[in-house]
């Protein structure tokens, strides 16, 4: 009996300590977002928290913030194009390596995943030197290429996971019923792996939209990207309108996330 009580006491203590740390962690996770949202409604000129009063003045200033709008549009274009390219290239690669037991498939897998671990900044610099040496002018296209390299691992990871969960019996029965490989792919495989592909595409899109280390090197003087514009605005002067932009971004992300959770169960697929 006393052993049981001792166990109870230590279990309560352990749960208490871990629980307390978990609460701190959750507060840390949420605090920044909440604070930025509240701050964006300030009527003051500084980042004082809590704000002296509330207004929509910083949102009203956004339609005139041409630099931010221009940067946001560039970021959107690059994110869309690089996600599209990453999906087309990545799904093919995922199909090739997902169920293959060849040694080459493992090599390719590590090769395609390596942008995740290599410092992206080194890759950004390498690309800048590369493009300038082979005589390609920096433009939105060089940005698209750089972002695709960094984003494609996400698409491959979620697509490979979806493909390996696919019951082989489905493909075999489709083939034994006389369907061609292309037909089976279009009517059986693709619909079943679509949520996995969508989850990867979503993460790829977000990572491109938020990319700094590659954009820093591959943009030219006239192509401003949103995260870099915001960073420069913040370094120069702590501009409150950035809080309004941030809040809008959080809002759009939240909506996208809920939609993606419904469509693709994204929280289960990005681990």
């Amino acid at each position, binding site marked *: 009996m006393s*052993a049981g009580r001792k166990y109870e006491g*230590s*279990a309560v*203590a*352990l749960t208490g*300590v*871990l629980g307390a740390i*978990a609460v701190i*962690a*959750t507060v*840390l*996770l*949420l*605090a*920044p*977002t909440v*604070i930025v949202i509240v701050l964006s409604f300030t009527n003051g000129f500084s*980042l004082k*928290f809590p704000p002296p009063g509330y207004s929509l003045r910083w949102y009203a200033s956004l339609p005139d913030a041409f630099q931010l709008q221009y940067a946001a549009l560039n970021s959107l274009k690059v994110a869309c194009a690089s996600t599209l390219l990453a999906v087309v290239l*990545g799904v093919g690669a995922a*199909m*090739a390596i997902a169920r*293959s037991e060849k040694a080459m498939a493992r090599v390719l897998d590590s*090769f*395609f995943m390596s942008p995740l*671990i*290599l*410092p992206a*900044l*080194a890759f950004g*610099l*390498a690309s800048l*030197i*590369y493009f300038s040496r082979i005589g390609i002018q920096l433009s939105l296209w060089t940005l698209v290429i750089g972002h*695709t*390299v960094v984003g494609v691992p996400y698409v491959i990871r979620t697509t490979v996971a979806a493909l390996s969960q696919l019951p*082989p019996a489905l*493909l075999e029965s*489709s*083939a034994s019923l006389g369907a061609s*490989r292309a037909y089976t792919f279009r009517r059986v495989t693709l619909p079943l792996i679509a949520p996995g592909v969508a989850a990867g595409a979503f993460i790829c899109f977000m990572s491109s939209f938020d990319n*700094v*280390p590659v954009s*820093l*090197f591959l943009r030219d003087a006239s192509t401003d990207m*949103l*995260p870099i514009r*915001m960073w420069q605005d*913040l*370094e120069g002067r702590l501009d409150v309108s*950035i*809080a309004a932009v*941030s809040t809008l*971004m*959080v809002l759009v*992300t*939240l909506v996208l*996330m809920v939609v993606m959770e419904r469509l693709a169960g994204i929280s289960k697929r*990005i*681990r």
Partner: protein
Amino acid sequence: MTAAVLKGPPVTGYSLAFATPLAAFFVLFFLAPLLLLIVISFYATPELQSFGFDQYVKIATDGFTLPVLFDTLWLGLQTTLLCLLLGYALAWCYVRSPGSLQKLLMLAILMPLLTSVVVRTFAWVVILGRQGIVNSVLAEFGWIDAPLKLLYTRGGLIVTLANVQLPLMVLPLITALQKLDPNLEDASSALGASALRTFVKITLPLTLPGIVAGCLLTFAASITAFISQSLIGGGQMLFMPMYIYQQASSLQNWPFAAAISLVFLVAVMACVSVFNLLGRLSRAGA
């Protein structure tokens, strides 16, 4: 005819040829630039005229680059440890929570991952600043007379980075904890082990793959977190990413920038290998 069927790939698999477009793309735009980076680092001068080991000699002897490198790796390690402490507790509580709470917690965990890094770092400027939340709360209670310096300090930077990278740590840990057979913990306590002993002897070792995966991602992300390092660290603290950027952009010294990027890259790969090795060793020992 049978031979032809046998020779072709099984219907459940696809030919490796499907990877060709991406492989070509990677060779052209990933491998080639990195190889060129190596070549450039062996130029002796920024004008790219003669070859030599000058850049690497400079790194080894200038007494500045190596300290910046080690400081960056140390920052990554500190951030990873803080993340592990916070993340493990959160993941442990997550798998023990009822379903409805899990949904909310998952939203809290994913939200930062999908909010711009600039936005999250910006929030920490507000929290840590001289008129920031921490300072106003402390002053309100009369615990401090003058505002504490939190922004532009190492402590502030570590907390910020830990917050920014926390989701990368929590997600693999949740996966590892969910795979853990609850019977093992029950058996341990039924045999008389205390909860703490069960945690240290059963739960921690069995979730080691998740710990290693989380640490790898957190470490790799925090040492290259350019924005957080420059906004929270300020001008006084210099880490490798900003150093590389300054050398390449402001000074246009490509060979030196290339050389320090490569040294940084190799150091990161070495740390990653050590992490992996530690994981494998302790799994073998457990």
